[in-house]
C-alpha cells in the first residue's frame, strides 16, 4: 500500500485541533492520577512509619521501667544492709517505710473494698442529654473524697495509686489519672475498714445514690485482702522545699 500525502481536508484540520486538545487533556489527567497515587503511597508510608515509632517507644518504655525496678531493688538492698549495721539506721529504715506508705511509694495490702464503676447500659434516648449517663471525672473525685473522709489509707484507680500529685481530670472521652488515660469501667481499690468505707459510700443521698439515679453501674465488694500497687510515675519537686528550721 502506498502512503499518499494528501492535502488535509477541512475535516482533518478540525480533527487535528480536537486531537491537540485531547492530547493536552490526556497528559494533564495522567499527571493528576500519578500525583494522587503518589499522595496515597506517601500517606501509607507515613502510617507505617508512625506505627513503627510507636512500637519502638513501647519497647523503650518497657526496658526503662525494668531499669527503674532494678535500681529500686538495689536501693532496697543498700538500705537493708545499712539497717543491719546499727540501731539508728534500723530506726531510720522503719521511719522510711512508714513515709513510703504515706507517699504511696510501696505496694501495700490490707482489708478494704473494691468499687467498680461503669457507664450506664441504658440505650441513648432522644431528648435526654447522653452525657448524664456517662461517668465523669467529678464522679470519680467524689467517690475518692468520700473514701478519704471514711479513713481510707491507700487508694488506687485502675491500679494507678492516688498520691499527693495525682490528678483526676477529664480528657475527652477518657479520664486522666497520673497522666495515664483510662476509659470506663473504673475499678477503685481502697484499703481501710471495709464496713466503714462501704457504709459511707452507700449512705442515703450519698454519691452512690446519686450515680444510681443516672443508672451508672456501681458494684461494691468488701475484701479481706486488697493489693494496691505503688506509684510508678516520677516524683520531682521543683518548687516545694523543706522549710528551714528557725525561719
Amino acid at each position, binding site marked *: 500500500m502506498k502512503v499518499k500525502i494528501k492535502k488535509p481536508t477541512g475535516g482533518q484540520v*478540525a480533527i487535528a485541533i*480536537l486531537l491537540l486538545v*485531547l*492530547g*493536552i*487533556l*490526556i*497528559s*494533564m489527567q495522567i499527571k*493528576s492520577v500519578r500525583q494522587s497515587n503518589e499522595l496515597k503511597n506517601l500517606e501509607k508510608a507515613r502510617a507505617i512509619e508512625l506505627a513503627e515509632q510507636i512500637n519502638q517507644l513501647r519497647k523503650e518504655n518497657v526496658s526503662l521501667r525494668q531499669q527503674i525496678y532494678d535500681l529500686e531493688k538495689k536501693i532496697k538492698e543498700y538500705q537493708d544492709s545499712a539497717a543491719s549495721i546499727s540501731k539508728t539506721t534500723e530506726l531510720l529504715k522503719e521511719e522510711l517505710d512508714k513515709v513510703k506508705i504515706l507517699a504511696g511509694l510501696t505496694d501495700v495490702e490490707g482489708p478494704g473494698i473494691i468499687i467498680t464503676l461503669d457507664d450506664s447500659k441504658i440505650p441513648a434516648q432522644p431528648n435526654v442529654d447522653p452525657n448524664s449517663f456517662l461517668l465523669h471525672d467529678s464522679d470519680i473525685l467524689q467517690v475518692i473524697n468520700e473514701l478519704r473522709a471514711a479513713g481510707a489509707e491507700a487508694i488506687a484507680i485502675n491500679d494507678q495509686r492516688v498520691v499527693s500529685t495525682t490528678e483526676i481530670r477529664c480528657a475527652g472521652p477518657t479520664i486522666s489519672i497520673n497522666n495515664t488515660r483510662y476509659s470506663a469501667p473504673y475499678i477503685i481499690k481502697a484499703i481501710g475498714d471495709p464496713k466503714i468505707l462501704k457504709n459511707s459510700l452507700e449512705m442515703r443521698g450519698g454519691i452512690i445514690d446519686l450515680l444510681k439515679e443516672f443508672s451508672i453501674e456501681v458494684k461494691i465488694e468488701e475484701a479481706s485482702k486488697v493489693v494496691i500497687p505503688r506509684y510508678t510515675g516520677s516524683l520531682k519537686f521543683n518548687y516545694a522545699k523543706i522549710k528551714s528550721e528557725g525561719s
Partner: protein
Amino acid sequence: MIVLIIALLVGILIGLFIPISIPQDYSSYVAVGLLAALDSIFGALKSNLKGDFKIDIFISGFVGNTLIAMLLAYMGDMLGIPLYQAAVVAFGVRIFQNFGEMRRSILIKNKSFSKEEKNQ
C-alpha cells in the same frame, strides 16, 4: 493521518510541560470525558474512511458526548449511583465497534486495490 497523529503527540507534549494538572476532585469526571472524546475521534476516523464525514456532526458529538459523560458521572456521584459506568460501557463498546468497521473497510479496500492492479 500523519497530521492527526502529530497533532495528538504535540498536544500530549504541551500537556506534560504545562505546569497545570487537573484538580483531584474533578479527575474522575475528566477521565470519563476523555473516553467520550476518544469515542468521537474513532467515529470520525471511521466516517472519514467511509467518506461520509461531516464536520458539524463530529464537533457536536465530540463536545456533546464529552459534556454528557462528565455530567452523568457528576450526577452519579450526587445520587450515589455509579452512573459513570454507563458512559464507560457505552463508549467502550462503541470504540471497539468503530475500530472493527475501520479494520474491515481498510482490508476490503486493499484487497480490491490489489485485484485492480492485477487486472491492469
